[in-house]
Structure formats: C-alpha cells, structure tokens
C-alpha cells in the first residue's frame, strides 16, 4: 500500500500513527515484470523492483494528505548523495514530516543495499541530506549484511535522527515442476512472520551500539510482537506484511493488544519498557 494518497488515508483511518510512503526515486520506474510476489508458508517473498511514479508526480499524493492529522514519512531511494538530496528536499517541500532513506532494498541493482553496505557512503549521504533538510531523517537498514552495527554507527555519525531495521531478507523460491525460480527477478526479499526473530536480533544489536532511536520492523503481526521489538530497543514499529495476515485492521488490532498487555502488566507508558531486554 502507500503508493497513493487514498491508500495512505485508509491506513491512517485504520489506526496507524504514521505512514511511510512507497520508496520514491528521481524518475518513474515500472519495477520488475510479474511474478513479483510469492506467498510462502511462513512469509511473503517479493521483488517488486522499486516501482514508483517518480518524485515529481508523487508530490501530488503527499499534498493531498495535508489535511490528515498524522505524520507522513517520505521514503526515498537514490544511487548517490546528489539524488538522495534532491529527493529529500522535494519530499520536504511537498509536506513530508520526516524522511526514510531506503539503503536496504535487497533486489534493485545500484540502489538499496548496494549503498547500505558501504559505511562511508551511508555516512556521506546521511550527512548531506541532514545538511539540506530540516525534517527528521531515518535510515532504513538491511540484515543482509555482516557489518550491520558498523552501518548503523555510520548513519548515526552522519547525523541520522533514527535507524529503521530491518528491510526484507534476500531469499528465493524455486518451483519444482518448472525447475525455475518463481520471481522474475529470481531473488527477492522475504518478509512476514518468519523474519521476526532476525529483526528483533538486529534491533537489539543496534540498540547496544547507537544512542539514536530505532524503529523496529519485520514480521510484526500482533501487539506482543510489537512489544518484543520495543523491549529489544525500538521506540516505534512499522507494519507492512501484517496486512496480509490480518488485513488493514492490523493497525488498530495491534494498538489494542498492546494496551491490553500494558494494562495486564501494570505499565503506563511505552517508554517504561523500551530496551527492557538489555540488562
């Protein structure tokens, strides 16, 4: 969802506290040919290929959301700092309340993880964006790298206001009858229930090493999942594939379930258990 104003409005009305847009680039991109998604037993595998209408056309969608009483986080992807800066400035001008730098898409050549695995680049891009915009900047990271903590530190030293972890995990599905990968891009990103323990671990490790807030994401479908991420060190969480398991009501359901848990455990504020698992 979140490719157009209408769907973002619906997500907010369904109980989300903020929306993150589809990742937007400088020019329109069709993404990969279908199949771009496969339903698997424990998650969803996708290789959309960063389809988006391009920043100039997307502006209209953000502008339409001004009346909404919820923050819009503009997700952007570029192949270098110049593109990221151009995108960030435009998002801010359209009215986005924060930026998320996609440095973790696992399946788009020249973008995402290809940038997000180089600590110098991550620091440089983050610093240049921070120097060009006034709104908060979050950096979305991948678990597909061995130097996750180093990259998170690079984002922090570049001035990032927060870290988002994790993006989908590189994976593949082969069809036995056709003896071929199902996705047209062959490799995709795995999301959903299967990846939650990996996301929790990543958030935990990042929290041990940086001081800026973390937004946890990966396989959250229930209030308890969200609380687990928060105990690992997240201050907020994102939900995407959760819509597949519980439809768009997932946002309200998770909020209700978190409140129930908090009541039962006599906890008044979420801040009381952020990072509680770190002893």
């Amino acid at each position: 969802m979140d490719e157009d104003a209408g769907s973002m409005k619906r997500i907010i009305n369904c109980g989300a506290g903020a929306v993150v847009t589809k990742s937007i680039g400088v020019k329109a991109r069709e993404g990969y040919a279908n199949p771009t998604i496969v339903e698997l037993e424990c998650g969803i595998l996708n290789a959309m290929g960063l389809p988006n209408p391009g920043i100039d056309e997307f502006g209209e969608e953000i502008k339409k959301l001004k009346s909404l009483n919820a923050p819009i986080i503009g997700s952007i992807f570029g192949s270098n700092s110049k593109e990221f800066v151009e995108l960030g400035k435009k998002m801010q001008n359209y009215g986005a309340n924060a930026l998320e730098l996609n440095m973790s898409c696992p399946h788009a050549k020249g973008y995402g993880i290809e940038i997000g695995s180089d600590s110098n680049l991550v620091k440089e891009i983050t610093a240049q964006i921070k120097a060009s915009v006034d709104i908060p900047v979050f950096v979305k990271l991948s678990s597909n790298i061995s130097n996750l903590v180093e990259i998170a530190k690079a984002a922090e030293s570049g001035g990032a206001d927060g870290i988002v972890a994790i993006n989908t995990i590189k994976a593949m599905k082969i069809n036995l009858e056709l003896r071929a990968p199902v996705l047209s891009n062959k490799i995709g990103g795995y999301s959903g229930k299967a990846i939650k323990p990996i996301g929790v671990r990543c958030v935990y490790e990042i929290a041990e090493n940086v001081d800026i807030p973390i937004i946890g994401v990966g396989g959250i479908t229930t209030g308890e999942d969200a609380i687990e991420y928060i105990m690992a060190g997240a201050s907020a969480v994102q939900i995407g594939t959760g819509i597949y398991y519980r439809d768009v009501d997932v946002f309200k359901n998770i909020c209700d379930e978190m409140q129930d848990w908090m009541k039962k455990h006599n906890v008044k504020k979420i801040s009381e258990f952020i990072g509680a698992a770190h002893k």
Partner: protein
Amino acid sequence: MKDLKIKNIIEVKKETNAVKTFLFDYSEKVIPGQFFMIWIPDVDEIPMSVSYINKDAIGITFRKVGDATKSLFDLEEGDKIGLRGPYGNGFNISGKKILFVGGGTGIAMMAPAVEEATRKNISSTVIIGVKNKSELFFENRLKKSGAKIYISTDDGSKGCKGFASDLAKEIIGKEKFTSVLTCGPEIMMKKLLDICKNIELQASLERYMKCSIGLCGQCCIGEGLRVCKEGPVFDGKTLKNVEDFGIYKRDASGRKVRF
C-alpha cells in the same frame, strides 16, 4: 495461503481471430467474478477472471492485446502455466431479474455469472456490446443458458448499432430490473452507473496488478480500495465515491493514465 499451482492446458477453444479460451483441471470452489493470477513462465503474470466454472475445470478467455496475452495466445494444449487464486470477491448473484452488460472481452467473465443466475431461476437479460460482429463470442453459449440476448455493435454489423450503454438505457427504460451486473470498458461502466440511478449496480474493474493479495497497493482506487481484495466487483454506491472511476487508472510505475 493460496499455493501456486502448475497446470496443463487441457483444452483450447478459438472464440474469434483474437480471442481464445483455455481450460484447466480444477475442482475447488470459484465464484463468478473471481480471478486468478495466470503465470506465463518467463513472460509475465497477469490477473484474469474466470470465464468457465465447470464441475472439474475452470477456464479463462482472453484477447491478445499486450505482450503477455500474445505469448499466452501461442500456447497449446498440454502446455504448462501457473495459477494462483481464486482472488477477489466475485459477483453477488441474487434478485428477481438481472441485466448483464458485457462490453468487448468483458463478456468472458460475465458468462459464468449469467449461467449461475439462470441456474438460480433468476430472469436474465444479457447485452453483448462489441465493435463489430467479427469480435462477437459466447452468443450461443449464453442463449443456451436461457438468457435473453441483445447485441450491439459500434458499426451496426450485427444487432443494434451503437454502444452497449445506450442499448442498456433503452432496455432499462422499458423493463424493471433488480440489478445490473457489468464488465467492460470503464467509460461504459461509468455511463451505466449514471443510467442505473436506483437500480443496484455491480461492476467488475480491471487494474494493473502485482501482488493480488492486498499488499502492494498497485491496484488501489478511491480511498485505498484494493481491486484485488475489496474488488474486483464494486457496487454502485461505492463507485459513486471513487473519484478515479472512469477517469484514470495507474500504470506499472503508479503514474496516472487517463481512460
């Protein structure tokens, strides 16, 4: 979860020079108006509503228009394709008397709905609107189901000359229908929405689809209505509040394309 199934094409029927039907073994429940994602290996995966719902088989009927349907058109009996689904809501077939309006290839997915209506003893009238008589198909099949058939052609080569929506307006003016069910060019369906006024309308929409499971947002209309999930069949009340209905759709990148 809906598994991807690899199926052999068990029968190919040529409906017109540019329209074919493929049948596959299939015995699970499918509602008229629901669709499958059809995977043409190495080419593409596209949504298609079912055109046949038999006891042990389902069918799709399609016109060759783009790269995917052109490749599909060249497949033969015994060839393999991938199927996932059924997805979407399908038609609600009830009431006393239904008018079905199929524009162009839209009649393909309406046919099983007409057959179900006549099976339920619902009085059924069908308008098949095509550009010219060489594009007409399913006329005999629908006659056989017991429905009353009207044909309109843009060039007058068969039936009434003119658009299906004009013919619908005329028929609605003379007879009383409980509901109108339609599939075809969106501009035609939009005209029907205006014509229907107090008659219940159900229209099956077509949008570029990617995931088909309500996640990617590619097929959203109005305020976040997913054609793959809340649709593809929408009622008139809903469509009246969808500002893009009959105005624009989105291409693969999400850019607006006017009808």
